[in-house]
């Protein structure tokens, strides 16, 4: 598999990026995650060559992008970049912004399908508008279309949703997923919102104090109880399944031989979806209870018990199809039910939300 491999340093005023060695597969979505000031944006700028003072090394597939002081200019890296606030050219219409990318394609490069991209991104009816007359969400759509029209080898997005309201955010996440599915371009995505990570990420680069702390898959990142992805809602699990036709007013989600029922029946644009389950919404039972309002009962095996303090236990479970799930129970319940690793039991899920 082709990778993005390197070790980058960049000093900006008082801030110093020192990434350490990294190697990222060029496939799917890699999220750069960390607090503000952790160096996510600086690392992405260094990767895309936007700062001439970058030092170190960077190899993209077979190409050398950075070698000591030698930097390959960003216009030669074939990167599509979506900035936090779109960075559309204010003196041009939407169409002119898009053509700016198209006109500068290298000779002999594959011509991207303008109509297809514009339609998919949902701006076909806005081509002749001035960019100052677009809403925040529309601006980001144009920015994404413009990035796609460069036929990029790599897409970079720097907190593209941070300036949008929740509705626009949800639409953009769906759009980003569709775009990735349609054009199969690897994506480097910056965010500090765990919900976006859970929705999009294949792997996560955790950043701290200007360096890369660790790189993990989403499953790995969600399997440690101290994951930086957990905020004040406590531990979270992400389950993936194939969505089915709506039945009894519920959305079935196939996970192996089991089905998870979702009460959210909003329209889905894809079959493979992720759901987010809070550990505190999962209860445990030793037998499958029949007379219960909770409909989601999944058989599971206990992997480990992790004391959380305040007499609470986090129980890590493995479902039949191999996916992992956290349940949060009291120490008292753990003792009463004699829960130990290896025990087979049932996880009762009180509420499931689509990840977004």
């Amino acid at each position: 598999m082709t990778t993005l491999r390197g070790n980058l340093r960049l000093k900006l005023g008082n801030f110093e990026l020192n990434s350490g060695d990294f190697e990222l597969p060029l496939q799917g979505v890699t999220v750069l995650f960390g607090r503000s000031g952790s160096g996510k944006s600086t690392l992405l700028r260094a990767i895309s060559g936007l700062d001439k003072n970058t030092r170190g090394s960077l190899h993209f597939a077979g190409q050398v992008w950075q070698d000591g002081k030698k930097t390959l200019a960003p216009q030669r890296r074939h990167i599509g970049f979506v900035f936090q606030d779109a960075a559309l050219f204010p003196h041009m219409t939407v169409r002119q912004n898009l053509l700016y990318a198209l006109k500068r394609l290298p000779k002999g490069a594959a011509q991207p399908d303008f109509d297809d991209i514009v339609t998919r991104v949902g701006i076909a009816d806005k081509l002749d508008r001035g960019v100052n007359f677009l809403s925040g969400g529309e601006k980001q759509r144009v920015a994404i279309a413009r990035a796609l029209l460069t036929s990029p080898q790599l897409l970079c997005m720097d907190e593209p949703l941070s300036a949008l309201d929740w509705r626009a955010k949800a639409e953009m996440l769906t759009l980003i997923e569709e775009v990735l599915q349609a054009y199969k371009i690897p994506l480097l995505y910056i965010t500090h919102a765990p919900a976006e990570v859970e929705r999009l990420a294949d792997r996560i680069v955790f950043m701290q104090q200007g360096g890369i702390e660790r790189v993990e898959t989403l499953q790995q990142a969600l399997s440690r109880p101290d994951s930086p992805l957990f905020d004040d809602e406590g531990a979270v699990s992400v389950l993936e399944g194939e969505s089915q036709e709506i039945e009894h007013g519920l959305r079935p989600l196939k996970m192996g031989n089991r089905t998870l029922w979702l009460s959210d029946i909003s329209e889905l644009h894809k079959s493979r979806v992720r759901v987010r389950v809070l550990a505190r919404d999962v209860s445990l039972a030793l037998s499958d209870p029949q007379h219960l309002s909770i409909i989601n009962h999944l058989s599971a095996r206990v992997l480990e018990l992790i004391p959380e303090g305040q007499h609470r236990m986090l129980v890590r479970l493995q479902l039949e199809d191999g996916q992992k799930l956290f349940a949060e129970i009291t120490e008292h319940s753990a003792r009463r039910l004699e829960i130990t690793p290896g025990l087979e039991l049932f996880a009762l899920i009180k509420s499931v939300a689509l990840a977004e």
Partner: protein
Amino acid sequence: MVEIFGVEVSLEPIWLTLEVAAWTTTILLVIGTPLAWWMARMQSSSKIVLEALVALPLVLPPTVLGFYLLIILNPNGYVTEFLRFFGYEGQLTFTKQGLIVGSVFYSLPFAVQPLMHAFEAVPQKLLDAAATLRAGILDRFFSIVLPLSQRGFLVAATLTFAHTVGEFGVVLMLGGNVPGETRMVSIDIFDHVESLEYDQAHILSAMMLIFSLLVLMLVYGINRRFGVKVG
């Protein structure tokens, strides 16, 4: 010589003034643009020195500037010698060319400062975006920076032109008063007043007044139109 209200007036100084001002403006836009761009992107502390140097003609009495230029550009000086080496045969003092050189120095801040501020106002993010869309450095300048700095150029051109039209001290020191060569309108008016030819002075002054007013109104008019369109 033309007759206006029964008074014989030579319009030559006016045409000369406009010619010198036009050349100065053109040259300063060509030289000033890269200089202003360089200064706008500069981050080291030496920027202060450069900014002070460029602003110097604003504070320096024009006679001081004219005096130094007279010394530096004298026919036996290094600058003229240097130009002789490339086959230059004229001289830079008491000639039109010399006046233009002098005006370029004199009006430098009026071209560079508005351009620099216009360039500084172009968000770096837009240039970054252009780079990721495969625009090289010059491409970025012409496709993004220039169109977004239109007003800066308009202001720079007008101020440079107007300021050159109104110059007096530098012209007097460096150009003297050669009819058709260095006698600009400000000098001419001064001459008329000195020789108590108030009628001629009146007519020339009034023409300058009306001309300046018209130019400024034109510029503000255009500026306003642009203002609505760009901002």
